[in-house]
């Protein structure tokens, strides 16, 4: 029994112990062919006089990376490989005057990123004077360069048109799927890469639950195409519940997020799926622990697409060899079907789900120690407007979590949401949306229990059978006040009904982006966010009931600067401060002898710090990043004010990947962070009613710092232009480092992986 209890507790601890998908405007573009932007006007460039004066006579090519908005205007320009600044500056200056007809997907103008080449041809040497008496020889005047053309027209460089969708909000940190694939220790999983981002403080090495700018894991919301995902990682340590091949990009909004996101007070992790493709393609992988595959193809004359993805763990089979009585099983699936109704209308049916089980079998009797599952079916209609899009979707959900001797909670949900994005003018784009969700919770006690057990009462009180309703609306507008100032004010209003309790939250938000020069930006993001009480970590169905203590409220503010060295290399520095009122953070506040009601304990939280992020895309021959966070996260409860149990002053991540040639690629990643507080002398029993007790220190001793090294080695075998097979060896914590918590050591938590991946 004890071992079972420990196993369950370990799992819960390893796991860390609603709301309607407030929606990021999902892509509304149809899978029609993308039409590249067309050059309308290019005033051209002249060979820099300074270069001529210094004797330069070479033909010089400057490749620019341009981002164009839906009107075809150049919104950003950078040299792909900065060279002679005399040429780069002229090219960048000229790029500002370029005019394009926008890229289009079907009939819809879309934002795009392209390569654009200026070729500087030196002027011919001045002709010899026919007679000295003729007009004086002019100084070598700047001569017009070769007429500029898009690179594709010249054939000098391929045009790369990337539809980049809606411009990302300020202050967001992103990794693309292709980048994450090269990140050591992430196992190719975009969601696991979040822990490497600045502002993210891990709980335990290898455990994909984390604090974001002082906010606990339960206050971080996960979204996939605007659909709330209740649970992101299989069995705590496992991979994410979404096949990586589906994910185009993962964004982390650490604070001051757009008004379209709501009902989470700590942070938003938002993933965007890849656009549907009509050509038959797919990928798969086989690893030590699991196997997964994903394939997509078109049908109906390429008006429709169908995607199937799944992953299955045979961990149970392997584990049974070592511990026959324990069964560990996880799986997930994704199904997506799209149908192009018209050039402007697309229907998408998207279903996904995940299942985790930890069970013990004794004498042929199986007992579920911990099990959780969720399923979502989302029907979406996307309509492209002349200057925007309308996106409406209906989501059905089923969540269930079972904890032995605690009970079983199920939730069925139905949500609807509609969002409009409209370009009001060249200088203003507005987004408005409404949504509502009904969650029907069904809480069941264990089959056999002592009716007097207060623990069960606490569980039933926290998670009773009930109906919760939420509804909200948001609006924001991105104003380009001039070429260098972009301001996005917004507001969000949410109403909550849980049992007999109700609450309304009004959340103003504002973000700003100030361009100083072409490569330097100042970023501000500020906002208020609310959230009902939350469980320690996100688990399907385990949404605490009632609003007795009110909504959690966070005041989020950040200011930073970003600098682009080139299209692939950038750096940023951000200062942040978050304040959390009525926060629920059981693991950040709790002491060793806390009662069950610590789950509903409220505290005043604060997170303040500095984030540094410098990166060069990991997909480059030499790529990498450095992410460093200096922060302090505190809690105040009653008379006490102390650092959060998982406050870490320094968190450092650095990764490097290098293309060794011959399709070999190697990478390493260093993770370092300082220790958590050790509150010795603090009473085991935390209870204000019992009277004064020992207080926790504001400057306690710390556990030892932690260091680990992750490694990755890949060999690819190319089978065609877009097809390959790769062997990937990866190890998280190759240094076998142990982690300290007070007097106790954990680990080493080392995850080796040997796998074969294929893509076609």
């Amino acid at each position, binding site marked *: *029994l004890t071992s079972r209890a420990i196993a369950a507790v370990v799992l819960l601890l390893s796991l860390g112990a609603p709301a309607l998908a407030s929606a990021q405007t999902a892509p509304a573009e149809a899978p029609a062919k993308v039409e590249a932007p067309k050059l309308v006007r290019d005033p051209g460039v002249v060979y820099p006089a300074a270069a001529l004066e210094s004797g330069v006579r070479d033909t010089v090519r400057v490749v620019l990376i341009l981002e164009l908005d839906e009107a075809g205007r150049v919104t950003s320009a950078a040299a792909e490989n900065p060279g002679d600044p005399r040429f780069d500056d002229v090219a960048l200056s000229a790029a500002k005057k370029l005019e394009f007809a926008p890229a289009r997907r079907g009939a819809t103008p879309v934002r795009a990123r392209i390569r654009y080449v200026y070729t500087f041809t030196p002027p011919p040497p001045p002709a010899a004077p026919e007679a000295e008496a003729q007009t004086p020889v002019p100084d070598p005047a700047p001569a017009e360069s070769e007429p500029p053309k898009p690179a594709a027209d010249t054939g000098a460089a391929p045009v790369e048109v990337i539809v980049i969708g809606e411009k990302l909000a300020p202050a967001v940190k992103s990794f693309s799927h292709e980048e994450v694939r090269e990140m050591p220790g992430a196992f190719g999983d975009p969601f696991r890469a979040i822990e490497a981002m600045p502002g993210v403080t891990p709980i335990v090495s290898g455990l994909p639950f984390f604090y974001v700018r002082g906010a606990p894991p339960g206050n971080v919301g996960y979204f996939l195409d605007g659909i709330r995902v209740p649970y992101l990682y299989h069995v705590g340590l496992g991979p994410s519940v979404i096949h990586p091949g589906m994910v185009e990009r993962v964004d982390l909004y650490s604070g001051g997020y757009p008004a379209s996101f709501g009902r989470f007070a700590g942070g938003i992790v938002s993933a965007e799926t890849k656009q549907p493709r009509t050509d038959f393609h797919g990928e798969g992988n086989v690893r030590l622990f699991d196997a997964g595959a994903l394939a997509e193809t078109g049908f109906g004359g390429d008006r429709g697409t169908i995607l199937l993805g799944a992953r299955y763990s045979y961990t149970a089979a392997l584990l049974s060899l070592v511990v026959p009585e324990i069964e560990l099983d996880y799986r997930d699936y994704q199904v997506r079907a799209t149908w192009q109704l018209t050039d402007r209308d697309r229907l998408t049916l998207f279903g996904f789900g995940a299942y985790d089980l930890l069970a013990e079998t004794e004498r042929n009797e199986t007992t579920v120690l911990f099990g959780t599952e969720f399923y979502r079916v989302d029907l979406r209609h996307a309509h492209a407007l002349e200057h925007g899009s309308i996106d409406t979707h209906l989501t059905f959900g089923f969540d269930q979590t*079972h904890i032995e001797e605690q009970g079983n909670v199920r939730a069925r949900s139905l949500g609807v949401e509609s969002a409009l994005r409209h370009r009001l003018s060249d200088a203003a784009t507005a987004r408005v949306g409404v949504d509502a969700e009904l969650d029907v919770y069904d809480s069941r006690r264990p089959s056999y229990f*002592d009716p007097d057990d207060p623990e069960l009462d606490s569980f039933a009180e926290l998670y009773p059978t009930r109906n919760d309703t939420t509804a909200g609306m948001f609006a924001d507008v991105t104003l380009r006040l001039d070429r260098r100032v972009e301001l996005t004010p917004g507001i969000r209003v949410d109403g909550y009904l849980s049992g007999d309790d109700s609450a309304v939250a009004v959340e103003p938000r504002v973000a700003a982006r100030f361009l100083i020069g072409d490569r330097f930006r100042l970023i501000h993001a500020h906002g208020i966010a609310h959230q009902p009480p939350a469980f320690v970590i996100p688990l399907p169905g385990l949404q605490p009931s009632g609003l007795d203590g009110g909504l959690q409220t966070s005041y989020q503010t950040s200011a930073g600067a970003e600098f682009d060295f080139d299209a692939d290399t950038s750096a940023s520095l951000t200062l942040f401060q978050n304040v959390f009122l009525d926060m629920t953070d059981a693991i950040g506040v709790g002491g060793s002898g806390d009662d069950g009601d610590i789950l509903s304990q409220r505290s005043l939280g604060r997170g303040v710090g500095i984030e540094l992020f410098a990166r060069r895309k990991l997909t480059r021959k030499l790529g990498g990043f450095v992410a460093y966070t200096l922060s302090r996260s505190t809690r105040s409860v009653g008379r006490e004010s102390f650092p959060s149990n998982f406050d870490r002053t320094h968190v450092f991540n650095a990764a490097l990947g290098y293309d060794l040639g011959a399709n070999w690629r190697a990478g390493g990643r260093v993770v370092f962070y300082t220790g958590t507080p050790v509150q010795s002398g603090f009473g085991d029993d935390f209870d204000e009613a019992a009277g004064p007790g020992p207080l926790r220190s504001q400057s306690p001793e710390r556990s030892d710092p932690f260091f680990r090294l992750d490694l990755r080695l890949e060999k690819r075998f190319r089978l065609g232009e877009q097809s390959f097979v790769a062997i990937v060896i990866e190890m998280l914590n190759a240094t076998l480092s142990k982690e300290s918590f007070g007097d106790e050591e954990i680990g080493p938590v080392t995850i080796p992986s040997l796998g074969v991946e294929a893509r076609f």
Partner: protein
Amino acid sequence: VSRARKVTGLLGAMLLLACLPVDTRPPPGALHVSVRGNEALAQGIPLTSDGWSIVYDRFLVTIGHTWLSGETCDVYSEADYTRIVDARRSEPQKLSLLYGDGRCALMFAVTSPNEDTLITAGVSEGDKTFLRQPGAVNGGISMRVEGRATDGVRSKHFGWSFFRYSGYDCALQEETPFALSGAKDAHATISLRGEALFELDRQPDSALALGPLRFTPFARADDVFGDGDGEITAEELEATPSIDPVTYDSLRIQLDSSLFPSLPELEQKPCRALVLNERPPHAD
């Protein structure tokens, strides 16, 4: 249409694919566990071997965390909570309800109370607050004993608090653990023995040798090693040699390490204490 139906069917099937397994175990047996004080607690000890009579004025015990165990025991439920019991009451009071299948041993603990600890007949919220002394080691008092003793000439008063955590296994020495199965009810009664604290000749780690009851060494703690004011304090016990000086440095340690853990018995058979942590008794 056919394709659409297939897609719809596929999605519907996905929703049903992997529901968590349902409980298919056979119905278990129920074990109703109760607790009571014995006659010595209710009526007092009329006469010890050395001529003292003892009466308890207060005897509060925090007991619970009951669970089943055993090689052939399938555990269906635990009762991971505690109750504060007034051990001077002789009628059985509910301690917990457990479910299991097979041959199961009963285990429980005497420990400090927490906020969720239930109180039973004769125990007040004030008692609970008292036992949950703020700042106390291990979160509070496991057992509070107050009483009086007299040998006809002298009268002594004692008030001792125990902070020790003791886990008890009441079936390892029981050759026939509880047989639970088939939705049948079984009953177990834990008795708390008032004599336990004065069985000074008890051998270490022995659950069987009860020995005669003696109070004189406690009286000497006040008369010889204390201030003789009639109140036997923890400090005086600390200063008093134990009956078994090889094993225990003082009478206080003997009381704490040997006598206190021998308090409960199950179905008139002694229990064995499994876990003892180091918490000194405390008299206020």
